[in-house]
């Protein structure tokens, strides 16, 4: 009688080089599910207060989701979590690829590293052995090369690797962890934590079986979900761009059904938004200064979905994903192929810096993946540098002779190459815009667009105020994956859980900016649901299809044998959110101080473009959001008794 | 060797509808009987205010929710117990047993005794509610059927029975 999870985690002490297994009782899974929840529970208890993120006390964990490998769909994502050096708060990043089942097949629901190793090492686990091995010959290699060498060294084609590149080794605070030759877990600067511990990679090739409570029910639900994924309507390449223009023009907005976005994802992947978002005002342009006027249809034409699709050799599916939004594109120049750049990468390196040249974007995408640096933060840093240069804060001498002008793709490419090698201006920018602005001074803070240190992703709060709420109120600031007004519409949670606000099929755009309590409830439900999804290893693109079509809660019940209602799962999500916020409070973070610059909130509002005249009133919605979780509405901190619940005896 | 197939249970829609209509009508009849018949009124006085009683069929079946509001008025609160404050539940295990009860093959006491119906809440109020239920059945049904539904057919005067029956049928059926 299986339970879906393995019941054990592995603790590796890099200072002493010891490996210790720890069994996790069933009650913990019943409360925190797995993945993000389990990581939050364990790290909250095991990382001492105000530990140095790059010191030995910080603990980094690699965790699969509970549903990974159980026969459910969209559940192949894995989590890496630690105290974030970039924001000083709870840091986590999640990524697809095929590493998640590999962790579980080694028999673990999580592998955690503490301490610092004297010399570079990597962890090797297969069916028989688990040990730390010397990684000095791989140290210095870029992520893709290191991965190929490690797989060859392991002698089996099925080995899965997660490793850091140069950026991580050089402790760049915006570096991440790469797997499958370029799938990135980039946010919260987790790569720097691995770099600080001298941990180059984890190499896994386990063979354990994953047992499930009710396999037939899992298949029944998966076939149901597959039916919706396979439903496809032919879509012309320029359709998204046209739709963007229409949505900008219309005064009212339509509640989105996830199936439309699913069909676009299945045909083009996330790049389908390359023209749609800038046109409707969802994408920030010219370091959040510009508007859809500056990045018109002609400028975004060079990276419109059809063009990207022409370069795509083959579609790429993450583990257990029937949708397949990824792809491998061929490239001219030094590197022959790269993972299809995501919408965030194209806009960060394109629209944000007004860089029209698609080839430079492809090349930058590949070198950033190889270096293991987060493409969003790199683009944001470049845009920040261009604006400082434009306003004279940075002179030609500071930029080692680079002409940092909007759209000068050659200069931007060289700047990012310098950032990877930490040379000159690159060393300044390699730790994110917040640290760079502090070092430069001279009023550069106003151009540094971030939330609590994390560079903002390519979704403009002025277009969907939900983003502003989730950028600032979440325990992990500056993330677009946790919730927004649009996400609540597509999740359709009110169809499975009782007492949730319904969304009108058609409503005026102005309604999005009202600060009534319903917005807070929607935001809170988003966060709770995404906590459960991230703990089960789920991918939000799958969940967009709709709660009644892709039934995550039924999968959880069938895999574990529990009999929990959707309301109980959302309550578990609330529990997980509260632990992350308690982690922040324990490490001295003041939630009310995490804000975004006024430029993002539309103060003063823009005079042209799609978000003309839009301002976002954040405070009332944020305190209502916090009280939804039972935290203190002013300070955003959970009550001490609530925090005491999580400390294990 | 045998072969295996899962059987996903079907819903008995006809029986559900029959019960739904019957419970709807009985519920309204109880509300009116509380006004018309003083014996029923006395029974309801013994039940505290803001107290809801539900005769519910597990797992999806219709329900009969009757209750007293704050100011003591008897109300028929519809046929579903979702998000209502229910103080006393009389739960029927499944729809077949409810059919036995409402086609009078078993009287209320007999189905209670055969553990088809069990109580979750204060017993004295349940006893009062069963007496009300029996009184309404005597009003609504002709003697030969009512005898099956009730343990002891009360010796009411003919006038009282007829007048009550007319009022209830009129008010419950057509009236508000």
């Amino acid at each position, binding site marked *: 009688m299986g339970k879906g999870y393995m019941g054990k985690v592995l603790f590796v002490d890099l200072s002493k080089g010891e490996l210790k297994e720890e069994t996790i009782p069933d009650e913990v899974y019943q409360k925190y599910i797995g993945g993000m929840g389990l990581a939050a529970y364990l790290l909250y208890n095991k990382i001492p207060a105000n530990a140095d993120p790059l010191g030995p006390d910080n603990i980094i964990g690699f965790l699969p989701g509970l549903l990974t490998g159980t026969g459910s769909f969209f559940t192949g994502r894995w989590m890496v979590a630690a105290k974030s050096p970039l924001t000083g708060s709870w840091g986590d990043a999640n990524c697809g690829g095929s590493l998640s089942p590999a962790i579980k097949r080694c028999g673990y629901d999580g592998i955690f590293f503490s301490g610092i190793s004297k010399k570079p090492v990597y962890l090797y686990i297969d069916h028989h052995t688990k040990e730390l091995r010397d990684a000095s010959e791989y140290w210095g290699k870029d992520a893709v090369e290191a991965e190929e060498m490690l797989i060859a060294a392991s002698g089996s084609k099925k080995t899965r690797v997660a490793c850091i590149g140069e950026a991580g080794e050089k402790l760049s605070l915006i570096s991440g962890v790469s797997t499958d030759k370029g799938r990135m877990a980039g946010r919260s600067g987790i790569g720097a934590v691995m770099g600080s511990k001298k941990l180059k990679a984890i190499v896994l090739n386990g063979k354990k079986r994953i047992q499930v409570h009710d396999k037939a029910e899992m298949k029944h639900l998966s076939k149901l979900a597959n039916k919706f994924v396979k439903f496809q309507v032919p879509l012309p390449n320029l359709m998204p761009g046209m739709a963007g223009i229409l949505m900008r023009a219309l005064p009212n907005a339509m509640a989105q059904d996830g199936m439309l976005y699913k069909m676009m994802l299945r045909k083009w992947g996330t790049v389908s938004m390359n023209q749609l978002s800038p046109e409707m005002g969802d994408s920030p342009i010219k370091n959040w200064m510009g508007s859809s006027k500056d990045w018109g249809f002609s400028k975004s034409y060079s990276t419109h979905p059809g063009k990207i699709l022409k370069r795509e050799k083959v579609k790429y599916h993450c583990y257990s994903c029937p949708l397949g939004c990824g792809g491998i594109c061929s490239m001219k120049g030094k590197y022959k192929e790269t993972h299809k750049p995501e919408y965030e990468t194209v806009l960060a390196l394109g629209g944000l810096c007004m860089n029209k040249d698609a080839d430079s974007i492809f090349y930058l995408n590949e070198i950033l993946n190889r270096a293991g640096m987060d493409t969003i933060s790199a683009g944001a840093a470049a845009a920040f540098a261009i604006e400082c240069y434009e306003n004279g804060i940075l002179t030609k001498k500071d930029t080692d002779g680079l002409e940092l002008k909007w759209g000068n793709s050659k200069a931007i490419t060289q700047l990012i190459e310098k950032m990877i090698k930490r040379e000159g201006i690159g060393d300044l920018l390699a730790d994110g815009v917040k640290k760079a602005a502090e070092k430069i001074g001279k009023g550069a803070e106003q151009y540094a667009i971030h939330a609590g240190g994390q560079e903002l992703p390519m979704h403009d709060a002025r277009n969907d105020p939900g983003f502003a709420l989730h950028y600032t109120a979440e325990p992990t600031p500056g993330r677009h994956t946790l919730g927004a007004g649009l996400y609540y519409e597509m999740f359709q949670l009110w169809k499975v859980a009782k007492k949730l606000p319904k969304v009108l099929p058609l409503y005026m755009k102005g309604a999005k900016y009202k600060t009534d309590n319903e917005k807070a409830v929607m935001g809170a439900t988003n966060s709770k649901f995404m906590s459960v999804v991230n703990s089960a290893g789920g991918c939000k693109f799958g969940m967009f299809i709709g709660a009644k079509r892709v039934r995550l809660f039924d999968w959880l019940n069938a895999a574990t044998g529990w009999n929990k209602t959707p309301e109980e799962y959302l309550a578990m999500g609330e529990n997980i959110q509260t632990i992350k916020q308690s982690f922040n409070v324990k490490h001295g973070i003041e939630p009310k101080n995490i804000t975004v610059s006024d430029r993002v909130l539309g103060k003063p509002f823009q005079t042209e473009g799609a978000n003309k005249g839009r301002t976002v009133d954040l405070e009332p919605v944020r305190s209502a959001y916090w009280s939804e979780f039972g935290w203190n509405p002013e300070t955003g901190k959970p009550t001490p008794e609530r925090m005491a619940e999580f400390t294990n005896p | 060797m045998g072969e295996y197939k899962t059987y996903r249970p079907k819903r008995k829609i006809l029986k559900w509808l029959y019960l739904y209509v019957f419970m709807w009508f009985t519920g309204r009849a109880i509300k009116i009987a509380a006004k018309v018949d003083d014996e029923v009124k006395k029974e309801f006085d013994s039940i505290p205010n803001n107290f809801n009683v539900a005769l519910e069929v597990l797992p999806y079946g219709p329900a009969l929710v009757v209750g007293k509001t704050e100011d003591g008025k008897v109300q028929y609160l519809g046929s579903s117990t979702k998000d209502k404050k229910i103080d006393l539940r009389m739960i029927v295990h499944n729809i077949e047993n409810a059919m036995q009860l409402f086609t009078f093959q078993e009287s209320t006491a007999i189905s209670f005794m055969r553990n088809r119906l069990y109580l979750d809440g204060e*017993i004295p109020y349940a006893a009062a509610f*069963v007496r009300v239920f029996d009184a309404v059945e005597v009003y609504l049904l002709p003697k030969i059927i009512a005898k099956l539904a009730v343990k002891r057919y*009360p010796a009411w005067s003919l006038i009282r029975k007829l007048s009550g029956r007319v009022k209830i049928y009129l008010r419950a059926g057509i009236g508000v």
Partner: protein
Amino acid sequence: MYLPEYCEFLSPVQIASGHHVLEKIPGFLKALNAKRPLILADKGVTAAGLIGIVEDAIKDNVQIGAIDDDVPPDSDLKVVSRLSDVYRKNNCDAIIAVGGGSVLDTAKGLNILVSEDADNLMEFAGANKLKRPLKPFIAIPTTAGTGSELTMAAVIADHDNFIKILFGSRFLLPDIAIIDSRMTLTLPAFFTAATAMDAMTHAVESYICLQKNPLSDAHALSAISLISKNLLNVIRKPDDQEGRLLLAKAATLAGMAFSNSTVGIVHTLGHSVGGVCGVPHGTCMSIFLPYGLEYNYHLVNPFIAELLFPLAGPEVYADTPENKRAEKTIEYIRQLNQDLHDATGGRHARFLSEILNRDGEQMVKKSHFDAIARISIGDGTKFYNPEEIDYDDSMLVLEASWDGRPLNRNLVKKNA
């Protein structure tokens, strides 16, 4: 033989009976893989020295977690939560309850708290709220009569807001019930008579009420024959161990019978009189038993007739003609009450006005009748009585049983 259209029977409690059964408890604990039991009792039990007997029987091969004996006569929420702390502090893993109904009910409540490791009992109030078997629980009844070691219900009072909370679930039943003759050896004659009549009423009523079914009838018949054969000579010779054991077994059999075929009017009135005037349960039972039979006479007299055989034995049964047997049964029971009245020197009351408390006043007065009647029509056992009971019916029976004259049967309201 009576074959109903539908019936259920369940008595999943292991019964270990005999003279030296207490010594076997360590074996039972090991079978239930428990090592540190908590022994529960009430003041009366310790006063009678029964706790000493139990302790010596198991002391040398089982470590006793703790012994706690201040359980009040009617169990209470606060007592249960206090006991759960005692249980947890001594990390016990099983409960041994020694005593009557209230101790067993408290033990059931305690078992809910410690097995679900909750701290608010109210979450589990009502029927079928428990989902899993609880921790091991051994019951040692010391009053051969209540049979509460075999019922699936537990009633725990909440004295702050004066309500009685009912818990009903199959998992409340003890794993094992120990019937040891030493437990009832020192029970005084008056209590023996009262509890034995309580058991007799359980058996008789379970035979005539609506939930009558073949298995509970068989248990009831053997219970009645055991009690009627042994009661009087146990009263006369209290230290007769064999008789005590048979009476205890009869009480358990009656408990099995009535927990599947619930009792009727005698208990309806008995509970109300006990509630209003605080009269011991056994006494009310023996008084109302003949009246209960007379009240339901017109519906169940063939069954009453069948009771004559176990009650009076084959000779009397053969002598009385077919149609007179029901009358004879009722008269025999009245005669039994009379003999008990004489044997206990008048303490065993034959009718309501005779019930006296320790210092001799009349416990039940005519002024109580109204309150008793009103409460009785709300009692749970009322549903199971063959004939409907309303306010006037209970008043009629109370009046009749005030001075012991037989009930005038044609006054009883029949099906119009």
